[in-house]
């Protein structure tokens, strides 16, 4: 009998002890940043240790879900009530997830711990995206936008000392590169997905075109320009089948193209210091504009947000503490050392621009960057974006003329909005676009 009891004790003791040792709270921080990437490293090596100084009994579990599965995972978690406590996610998803009630309202915490001045320091697009009239549901950690990466030596070889500033100059430089160096002038991404739309939006918006009025002259002109780049052989037709935007950098690094449309994150991804040193001549120029009188192109902004997805009061407290530490105590360190992205707050932008000259172009452009979902009908944006990306591919492959492709897309987009909603959304988008365009044209 004693022997039996001993066996049971030996079997169960570790379980009992184990449970009591790990009885503290566990917080789950879910992200699509690969554990070896900078953001994930920052969370694990800086943020969590700092948090644990105050709350040593709270374990923070970093969970990585690949980007391709991220949204479907969140969806499954939301319907099965198994959401993590804190999420890191792409900004265009935020408005829909706010509407789906998955985030906690953190307005009170933001105002109390960070203050209204801090909140107002966020560029307006980031505030528009992460808040509603009722509250604040997420904070945008960092942002990014698109510019032209170019190989200075290649441009100099064809007699170009300054990177192109306007569309006309851009096409001219591409032509010189094609004729003299026998390679493509430019590569951009035109896959049938959101990234395809994202890379076309700077052309569209800078020319005064709207996602909700693709059949208008300004939008068609933008598509004609981009289509022309492929038609003239300045860009490869393979742009429609690239795996992702990182694929462009492979072409760029292999000297198959002299310029590429890409974002500042590349400095933290493929174009790391050792690669840049080896290439020796990589420079960044602002996104080209259709009109020489413009100060900057009007572009979409990218970047990630973080929000609290647990309803448990204690976990909300701990989750907010992590966010607070990130934004209140560690933001300087994060922007300076741990990211290839740029700040979402005006005051930090100036500091980082001085510290990291390679980001200067992107930081200047951030002032003219727009959030994507509000510019495409908020909840309808994924549909609008897909319609545009498909039309772009039809025009690029020559199966339809730019005019036909955008007229078809415009019809489909209009059909997505019931009744008066289309007119209202169209007017809002037009007004927002015009405001930024006016600023971009101011001397």
């Amino acid at each position, binding site marked *: 009998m004693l022997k039996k009891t001993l066996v049971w004790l030996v079997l169960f003791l570790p379980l009992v002890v184990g449970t009591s040792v790990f009885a503290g709270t566990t917080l789950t921080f879910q992200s699509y940043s690969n554990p070896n990437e900078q953001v994930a490293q920052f969370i694990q090596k800086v943020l969590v240790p700092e948090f644990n100084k105050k709350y040593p009994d709270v374990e923070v579990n970093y969970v990585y879900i690949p980007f391709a599965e991220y*949204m*479907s995972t969140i*969806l499954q978690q*939301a*319907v099965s009530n198994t959401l993590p406590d804190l999420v890191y996610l792409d900004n265009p998803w935020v408005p*829909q*997830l706010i*509407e*789906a*009630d*998955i985030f906690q309202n953190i307005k009170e915490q933001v105002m109390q711990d960070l203050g209204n001045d801090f909140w107002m320091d966020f560029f307006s697009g980031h505030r528009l995206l992460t808040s509603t009239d009722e509250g604040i549901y997420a904070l945008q950690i960092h942002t990014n936008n698109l510019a032209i990466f170019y190989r200075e030596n290649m441009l100099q070889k064809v007699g170009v000392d300054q990177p192109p500033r306007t569309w006309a100059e851009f096409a001219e430089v591409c032509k010189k590169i094609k004729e003299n160096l026998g390679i493509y002038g430019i590569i951009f991404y035109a*896959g*049938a*997905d*959101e990234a395809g739309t994202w890379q076309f939006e700077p052309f569209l918006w800078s020319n005064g075109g709207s996602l909700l009025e693709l059949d208008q002259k300004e939008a068609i002109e933008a598509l004609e320009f981009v289509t022309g780049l492929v038609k003239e052989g300045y860009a*490869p*037709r*393979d742009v*429609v*089948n690239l*795996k992702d935007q990182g694929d462009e950098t492979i072409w760029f690094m292999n000297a*198959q193209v002299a310029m590429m449309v890409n974002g500042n994150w590349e400095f933290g991804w493929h174009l790391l210091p050792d690669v840049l040193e080896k290439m020796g001549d990589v420079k960044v120029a602002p996104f080209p504009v259709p009109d020489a009188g413009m100060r900057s192109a009007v572009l979409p902004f990218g970047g990630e947000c973080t929000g609290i997805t647990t309803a448990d009061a204690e976990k909300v407290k701990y989750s907010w503490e992590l966010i607070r530490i990130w934004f209140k105590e560690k933001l300087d360190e994060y922007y300076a050392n741990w990211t290839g992205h740029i700040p979402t707050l005006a005051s930090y932008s100036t500091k980082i621009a001085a510290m990291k000259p390679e980001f200067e172009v992107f930081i200047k452009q951030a002032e003219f960057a727009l959030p994507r979902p509000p510019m495409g009908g908020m*909840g309808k944006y*994924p*549909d609008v974006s*897909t319609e545009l990306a*498909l*039309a772009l*591919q*039809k025009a*690029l*492959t*020559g*199966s*339809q003329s730019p005019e036909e492709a955008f007229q078809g897309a415009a019809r489909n987009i209009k059909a997505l909005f019931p009744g008066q909603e289309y007119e209202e959304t169209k007017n809002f988008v037009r007004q927002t676009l015009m405001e930024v365009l006016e600023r971009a044209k101011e001397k």
Partner: protein
Amino acid sequence: MKISRTSLLFFLIPSLVLVIFFGIYPIVYNVFLSFKDVNLISYIRGTARSVGIANYSDILVNATFWKALTNTAVFTLVSIFLQMVVGFLLALLFDREFPLKGLFQALVMIPWVMPIMVSGSFFRWFLSDNGFLNNFLTALGWIKEPVMWITTERMAIYSLTTVNVWLGIPFNFILLYTGMQQIPGELYESAAIDGAKGWQRVLYITLPVLKPVIITTFVLGCILTFKVFDLVWIVTKGGPGGASHLLSTFSYSLAFDRFQFGKSTAVLVLMQIIVIVFIGFSNRMKWEER
């Protein structure tokens, strides 16, 4: 020993649980969703409205759906036909002894053992305008301009079908080859004594005896090819311009590019109906065969 009916039912429970939860439940739930206006927000909030057959009527007037349906038919039938022909010829070849037979047999199996992510990524590069195939043909002087294998709406689906033929040959080969191994050698010996030539032996012995295996290979091949998703998604994502969508990729795109889960499940239900009709038809063929 006689086992009671209750005990038999008890032993059936694990399989029944699996079939109910992982087979029947998802199908029924899909059908249920296909009659609702499910998008990202309504799905999470549980507020999706019933819309009757609206998802189906929307899908049936969608030009991309018909394109995807046609593509799926072309992709499946052409793939299966060519895979079976090549698989059968290879099985005939390997049904005799020759030097290094084992090595060649292993080489034939390569497409099957290679992860689809690897072969898909390879073919995206291989078939691109600046890829290996075009460079090779240009170097030979056979073409002056790159052929747009996967960058035009007209060509993309045929290029993908060709890749799928390559991927599916080992499956057809192995089933047909195994079937051929079961044919008694005496049949061929008798035929040889009667003076049957090589092609006559194939036509009058191999093919008739192998018929049940051929039908099974055809049915399995059709079902597996009908639901191909990964190859197309990796190489073209259904593009350019939605021209190479199969029903599977079209449904996925509706769900995860546009978050239109109701319409996406309607496409899946239509796919299920097609498969059920096909299986019913093939079962009848097998029944008549018996």
